């Protein structure tokens, strides 16, 4: 299920397939497959529940976590108005979805590749690992704050070499950064892929540039359209020009973007 397929992006209305055991701030959101035949891990989709009405006029962007013939899965952390509504969906509620959007991560075969995930940044790597031509070359390093049980980590760590570190207080941060940088140092000549909060990505970028390590980062910006039209989600590229994160990213080579 890997390949790039951007031209045929459509808006679809699909059913929410799950049920929640109990209210949670971390939910796995499974929807009917909207007819996607392929996607590239690192791509995202815009979601909007049909019953939202007009109060929230924008969809919300989420990394595509995995796709199979029947369904597509996202991992959503509740942080505000839209995510709290998504976490309260009921079986068979209809969700409006457009995607897959954006570019996605590189997946070169037989290349030692370090996956750096911060918090919900782990979401796209689930599909990345499942679809990779040579998973034995992958190494996942996962930094998180909430309990590990909230993330799809255990499932992933069965498939590739993986380690996790929990930030229990801000005092842990220097240690975590040191671990990140040490791990990256092993990938000179390989590839580093990172997805997570902006400060996390800045750390990765700074170290990648300093050590001349090939790296890609997936950026997060507030998005209104998701398709490159509103110019609300821009970042600066390597030349300082504004480019749309939704259409030109969300994944950028560290040399080509100012975070």
């Amino acid at each position, binding site marked *: 299920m890997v390949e790039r397929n951007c031209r045929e992006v459509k808006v679809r209305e699909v059913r929410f397939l799950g049920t929640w055991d109990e209210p949670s701030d971390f939910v796995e959101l499974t929807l009917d497959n909207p007819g996607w035949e392929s996607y590239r891990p690192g791509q995202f989709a815009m979601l909007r529940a049909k019953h939202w009405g007009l109060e929230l006029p924008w969809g919300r962007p989420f990394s595509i976590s995995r796709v199979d013939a029947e369904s597509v899965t996202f991992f959503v952390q509740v942080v505000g108005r839209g995510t709290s509504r998504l976490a309260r969906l009921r079986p068979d509620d209809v969700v409006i979805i457009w995607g897959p959007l954006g570019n996605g991560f590189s997946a070169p075969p037989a290349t030692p590749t370090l996956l750096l995930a911060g918090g919900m940044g782990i979401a796209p790597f689930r599909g990345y690992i499942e679809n990779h031509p040579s998973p034995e070359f992958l190494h996942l390093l996962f930094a998180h704050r909430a309990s590990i049980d909230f993330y799809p980590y255990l499932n992933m760590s069965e498939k590739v070499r993986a380690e996790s570190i929990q930030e229990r207080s801000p005092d842990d941060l220097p240690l975590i950064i040191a671990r990140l940088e040490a791990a990256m140092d092993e990938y000179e000549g390989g590839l580093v892929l990172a997805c997570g909060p902006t400060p996390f990505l800045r750390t990765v970028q700074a170290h990648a540039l300093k050590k001349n390590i090939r790296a890609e980062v997936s950026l997060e910006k507030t998005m209104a359209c998701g398709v490159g039209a*509103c110019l609300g989600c821009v970042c600066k590229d390597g030349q300082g020009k504004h480019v749309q994160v939704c259409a030109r990213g969300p994944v950028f080579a560290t040399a080509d973007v100012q975070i």
Partner: protein
Amino acid sequence: MIDLRVEFAGLVLKNPIITASGTFGFGLEFSSFGDLKRLGGIVVKGLSLKPREGNPMPRVAETPCGMLNAIGIQNPGVEAFLRDKLPLLPWRETAIIANMYACTVPEFGELAGVLSGEEGVAALEVNVSCPNVTHGGAVFGQDPTQIRKVTEEVKKRAKGKPVIVKLSPNVTDIALCAQAAEDGGADAVSLINTLLGMAVDIRTRKPTLANVLGGLSGPAIKPVALRCVHQVCRKVSIPVIGIGGIVSAEDALEFILLGAAAVQVGTANFLRPDQSFRIIDDLPRAMIKAHSDSLGELRGSLKLP
């Protein structure tokens, strides 16, 4: 079959649904979501003579039933538009309207001169109302004398192409501004552009937008837009294009009922990227609801008490 065609100001449109500037990119971003040829028209992102990088981030904020934006007319410049975008658009089938942004009267004239030489450009829309940019647009849009001058200048350079003046609601009397455009020779006016607004965050104690102020759009502004269109329709004899908070076919018909020749759909394109196409599909059903079998019959048929 209800005939949805509209004709005004020398334009012939398949239907009255035009996508609004800045909310539909250059059209091409939406080509997988619907057939662009089905749209009545497309107003492209605001164009300036030179490329513009726009305002710093954050530039957009969602608000109840609406949004604020302070994009700052980021655009690749008129030359890049004509070279890279226009040839890819279905301009023979759908009216491509160029939205112009400039900071001085001569610049507006020059921009009009460049655009009016293009076969693929159906009409010029003059943005005198952009409240996002700290100098320029705002000055024109709030002063009827300036609106008339800009209109005259653009009209002079338009080589016969229809000139639409897009009005700002951030004025005391929008009908006076519409009259100034009419006096300057405008073929039509479009309204409203965004309402000046602001959002703040009590946690950071900072404005949400880097530009501090932004333009409010979306369903939240529809009542203001209807009021403005109503006032303007009663004052001028040139066609009026209604804009502001339109998300459904019913909303579009409300503006036409007040007298609008056509409408533009903006923020609704973010609800879902096929929304403008859905509104067109839904027009015949909404016409039945309005007990009307022609837009001409409905247009301006408001029953005042």
